[in-house]
């Protein structure tokens, strides 16, 4: 590799500051968006389709000029990074290939332009499991193979920072499992990975942090544990919910009816609820901890009907 000695300040903190993009003078695709991606972490960049994820990533990479605000990687704007593909690798869409060109030649052209040895093309093809298919024309690739070729181009310069836009699109379940393992592998090597998705479960298992976006604005950002803090609940089913509900309210908890016989309790542990039921003499048919559901949180936070409310400010996590 011809990568220069690593410089700590280029090791990959991504900072977006007040990023704004207005298309054709009226479509606010991204609106004063600020967030930070920490070096050496896998950060999920989440939001429904049309939330502004792709536009944001393209501004971070200098492909789209921001209407306002700045984005830097390791303290530099992308256009000012020397030999950028050896610092930052990006896979943005599954179709940026000439159909009549082989996958291998696509990568070799990038190698030549970037001054990388041609063997890197074969090395990254093997890394993404496209070794044999590399000599075929892209025209004959499945969507999943194109995604892998996109990942291969991102890895070409052996960068510390990876920016991946919807890399799981078009992958079959096997492919998604492979991708998760791949992220773990990359994160294990200490690389910074920013990966966008409109499907939370694709990144839930591997992301340390998430940045959630809707209508071009930041909805929430933080570690998954920060986001989930205070959102665990206890589920209790009883034929006699009224006295238990009163006891919970008196004890400082918050109970909500899931159905006439089932309560969702927040602000109390499983043990506290069990004890209250015992002292109130209420018969229980079920007492369990609700598994935290990031998917639910995601939908609450990005509810398409309402814009992000004032209670969902950045860094306050997913409190309701």
């Amino acid at each position, binding site marked *: 590799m011809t990568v220069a000695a690593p410089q700590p300040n280029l090791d990959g903190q991504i900072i977006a500051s007040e990023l704004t993009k207005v298309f054709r003078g009226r479509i606010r695709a991204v609106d004063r968006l600020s967030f930070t991606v920490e070096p050496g972490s896998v950060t999920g960049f989440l939001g429904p389709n049309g939330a502004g994820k792709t536009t944001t990533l393209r501004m971070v990479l200098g492909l*789209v000029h921001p209407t306002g605000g700045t984005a830097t990687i390791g303290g530099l704007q992308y256009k000012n990074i020397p030999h950028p593909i050896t610092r930052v690798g990006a896979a943005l*869409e599954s179709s*940026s290939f*000439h159909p009549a060109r082989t996958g291998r030649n*696509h990568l070799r*052209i990038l190698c*030549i332009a970037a001054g990388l040895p041609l063997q890197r093309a074969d090395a990254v093809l093997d890394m993404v499991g496209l070794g044999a298919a590399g000599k075929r024309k892209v025209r004959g690739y499945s969507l999943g193979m194109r995604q892998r070729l996109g990942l291969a181009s991102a890895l070409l310069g052996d960068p510390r920072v990876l920016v991946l836009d919807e890399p799981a699109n078009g992958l079959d379940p096997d492919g998604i499992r492979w991708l998760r393992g791949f992220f773990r592998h990359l994160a294990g090597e200490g690389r910074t990975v920013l990966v966008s998705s409109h499907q939370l479960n694709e990144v839930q298992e591997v992301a340390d942090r998430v940045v959630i976006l809707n209508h071009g604005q930041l909805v929430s950002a933080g570690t998954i544990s920060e986001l989930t803090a205070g959102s665990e609940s206890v589920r209790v089913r009883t034929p006699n919910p009224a006295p238990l509900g009163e006891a919970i309210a008196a004890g400082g908890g918050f109970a909500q009816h899931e159905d006439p016989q089932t309560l969702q309790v927040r602000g109390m542990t499983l043990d506290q609820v069990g004890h209250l039921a015992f002292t109130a003499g209420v018969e229980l048919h079920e007492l369990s901890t609700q598994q935290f559901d990031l998917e639910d949180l995601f939908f609450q936070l990005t509810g398409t009907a309402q814009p992000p409310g004032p209670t969902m400010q950045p860094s306050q996590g997913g409190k309701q």
Partner: protein
Amino acid sequence: MIRLVHAEFVKLRTTQVWFWLLLAALAISAIVVVASLAPANNVTDPSDVADMFTASNNASIVVFVLGVLGVTTEFRYQTITPTVLVTPSRWTLITAKLISYTLLGAIYALACLVIQLAMALPWLSAKGIDFSLDAQLRHVIGAVFIVVALYGVIGLGVGALLRNQIVAVTVGVIFLLALENLILLIPKVRNAWAYTPGGASNAILYTHGQNDFNGVHLLSSGAGVIVLLVWALIPALIGAGITMNRDIT
């Protein structure tokens, strides 16, 4: 810069368009030799021999098309995204494209001239026509290089301006092959033809007092170069300006 020019040539080489277009240009050049030297035609004058080689100028339309494709293909297949990610400086990219397609034009011109010479030299000596690399022929060969190379730059500019690949190729080819020649049919403005790319090319290519084309007074060779240069650079510069600030989405 050398790396980027190399990459541009590998981009061309790894698709097949270049081959078929080169084949077409070579075929036309070869056909002109056959038509000129066939027994029915009595090419005897060395100046007629030089004219025969101006046919290599047909490569200009082919190189124009390649220039258009050189820009529009990047946008059509979104290969512009990885291209710009590797080289974020768009001025550098634009310069690399300009150098590459000027070189490409020279290479296609050379290929056409070589095939013409390879066919014509033995044929001419068989016909007993005295033939040498005189000043006139040197002029024609130099002119072919200049014209074909500049058409590559015109192609890049038209591609950057029109962006849509099919529209740019169709409009460009129809203009260069047909529309600009329609000017010759309009009585009042037909003299303006001298300032079209085709008129300027003819001014560059022909030397021996042939400064008259279908009754239109041609420019001098030097003025022809300047006019063709303007045709090449204006779309290229406007296209470059647009591409500099264009969002790649």
